[in-house]
C-alpha cells in the first residue's frame, strides 16, 4: 500500500464502457456468448485469448462495426444498441486502431489526420492541421506529414493510424492487435507510443498477444475463450498466477520456452497460427484485399 507501482495509480473515473450479457453470432456460429465487461476512465484493459475466441468481434461490437445479436453496450452512458442512438456521435468519442492500419492511401499523412476533423468536427483547416501536427509529433512522425502512407514502414503507418485516431480527441482508444502485422523490429516503436498514451492517462482497450506489454502496462487483463470472459483481473494474477485451467493452457502455449528466444511477439504468432494450414497450403489462400 505504501509503495504502489507508479503506472497503476492513475485515478479511476466513471464507467466509460459497460458491456453486459453481449451475444454475437454470425449465422449459426455463436462467437460471443454472454460477455460482461466494464472499462473505467483512465484504465488500460488488455484483452487476450486464443485465435477465434471473439476478441476482435467484441472490440468491433463496442463501436458497432458489428451489430450485437443481443445484450447491451453502454459507451459513456449511451446505449449503442438502441436504434435511436446516434452512432456517429458515439464513434467520435472512440478511437480505433486496426491490425492492418487501414490508412487512407490517397491522402497524405497529414490529410489522414485532418479529414475527419474537417468533415466530422467541422474544424477549420488551420486548427485541424495544428491538432494533427501535434499528434504526429507525439508519435514521432512530425516530419512526415507530406508523405503518403505507401512511403512509410508498417510501424510508421501504425503510428500514423494512432495519431489519426488521437486527432479526434477520443475518450477511449480501441486497439485490435496493433502490432500483429508488423515486422518484429518495428513492434517496439508502436508499443512505446501506446505506453506513453497509457502513462498520459488515456483510457485504452487493447486486444494483444504482447504478454510483456500487457503485464507492464495494463491495469486489468481480460482472458477470453470460447466467446466468454474466463478471467478478468490484475495482470499479475491473470498472467502471473492464472486461476483457470484454460488460461494456464493458453499462456503455456504463448509463453512456451521453445518459442521465447524468438521474442514474445513471435511466440504469440506461433500460438495464433497453431491451427493454420501448413506453409505449403498457404500459397493457395487468396490474398487479403487489405494488402496493397
Amino acid at each position, binding site marked *: 500500500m505504501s509503495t504502489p507501482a507508479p503506472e497503476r495509480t492513475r485515478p479511476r473515473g466513471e464507467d466509460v464502457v459497460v458491456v453486459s450479457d453481449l451475444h454475437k453470432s454470425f449465422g449459426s456460429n455463436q462467437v460471443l456468448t454472454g460477455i460482461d465487461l466494464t472499462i473505467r476512465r483512465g484504465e488500460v484493459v488488455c484483452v487476450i485469448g486464443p485465435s477465434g475466441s471473439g476478441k476482435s468481434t467484441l472490440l468491433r461490437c463496442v463501436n458497432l*462495426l458489428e451489430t450485437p445479436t443481443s445484450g447491451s453496450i453502454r459507451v459513456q452512458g449511451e446505449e449503442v444498441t438502441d436504434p435511436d442512438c446516434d452512432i456517429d456521435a458515439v464513434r467520435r468519442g472512440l478511437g480505433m486502431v486496426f491490425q492492418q492500419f487501414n490508412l487512407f492511401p490517397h491522402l497524405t499523412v497529414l490529410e489522414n489526420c485532418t*479529414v475527419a476533423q474537417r*468533415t466530422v*468536427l467541422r474544424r477549420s483547416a488551420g486548427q485541424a492541421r495544428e491538432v494533427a501536427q501535434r499528434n504526429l509529433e507525439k508519435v514521432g512522425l512530425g516530419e512526415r506529414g507530406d508523405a503518403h502512407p505507401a512511403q512509410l514502414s508498417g510501424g510508421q503507418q501504425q503510428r500514423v493510424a494512432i495519431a489519426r485516431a488521437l486527432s479526434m480527441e477520443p475518450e477511449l482508444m480501441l486497439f485490435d492487435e496493433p502490432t500483429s502485422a508488423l515486422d518484429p523490429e518495428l513492434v517496439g516503436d508502436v508499443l512505446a507510443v501506446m505506453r506513453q498514451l497509457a502513462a498520459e492517462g488515456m483510457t485504452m482497450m487493447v486486444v494483444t498477444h504482447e504478454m510483456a506489454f500487457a503485464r507492464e502496462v495494463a491495469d486489468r487483463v481480460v482472458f477470453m475463450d470460447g466467446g466468454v470472459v474466463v478471467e478478468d483481473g490484475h495482470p499479475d494474477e491473470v498472467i502471473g498466477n492464472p486461476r483457470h485451467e484454460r488460461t494456464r493452457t493458453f499462456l503455456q502455449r504463448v509463453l512456451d520456452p521453445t518459442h521465447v528466444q524468438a521474442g514474445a511477439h513471435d511466440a504469440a504468432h506461433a500460438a495464433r497460427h497453431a491451427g493454420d494450414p501448413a506453409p505449403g497450403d498457404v500459397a493457395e489462400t487468396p490474398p487479403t484485399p487489405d494488402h496493397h
Partner: protein
Amino acid sequence: MSAPAPTAEQAPTRRRSSPRRRARRIRLVQYAVLIVLVVLALFTANWPQIIDVFFRPELVAATIGPALFLALGNTLIYTAGAFLFGLVVGTVLALMRLSEVPPYRWIARAYIEFFRGLPAIVVFIAFGLLPIAFEGMTIPWDPYGTVWVALGMVASAYLAETIRAGIQAVPKGQVEAARSLGMSSATAMRKIVLPQAFRIILPPLTNELILLVKDSSLVYVLGLSIEGYELTKFGREAAQSEANLTPLVVAGFCYLLITLPLTVLVGRLEATTAKAR
C-alpha cells in the same frame, strides 16, 4: 517451351522436323508471303488514282481550315460534355446498384441493361424525333444539350458498371476506418471510397472516353446545322460535295489525333497501376 522436345530425343532420325526448325520454316514462309503481297500491291494497284481519291493534296489543303477546326472542336465538346454527364449519372447509378433499398437496385439494373443492350444510334434517332413527337419541346443549349444527354445516357450505363467495380475494389477496411472516425456513410463514400475507386478505374475510364470520342460521330442522325457539325458529319458532307474521299480521310486523321494520345495514356496508367499492386 523450355521442356525438351521428346520426339527429337527418342527418334534422332526425325531430327529435321524438330519443333524449333519447323517454327523457323513457318516464319520464313510468312515473310515470303508478305513480300509477295507487297510487291503485287505495288505493281498492280493504280496508285495515282488511289492517291487522287484518298489523298488529293489540294483537297487536303482546302479541307484544313476553319470548318474543320469547328468540327474538331464540336467533337471534343460533344464528347467532353457527354462524358461528364455520363460520369455523374453513372456514379448515381453505381450507388443505386449498391443500395440497400432493393427498388433502387432494380431501377439502376433496368436502366443499365436497357442502354447497354440498345444500339447507341437508336437512342440518337429517338432524340432526333423528340421535338417532332412532343410538339414545341426543346432541350436547352441545342444542339449541345441534346448530344450531351443522348450520348451521356448511353455512356452512363457503361460507366456505371465500371464505377461500381471500382467502389467494390476499395477494401472494406477503408470504410471501417472512416466510420470509426465518426464519418457518416455518405461522407465516407465521398471522401474516402470514391476518390480511391476512381483512381483504380482510371485506365478503363480512359478507354470508355476513347469509345465515346468515336460514338460522338453518331450525332449525324440528329440533323444538325452547319455550326453543329462534328468531324464525321463534316467529312461526309465535304467528301460528298467534292465527290472525293480526301476530306473524310482528313477528318479520320483528326480522330486519331484525339484517340492515339489517350491510348498511350491508358497504357501508361495500366503500367503504373500494375506496378502499384
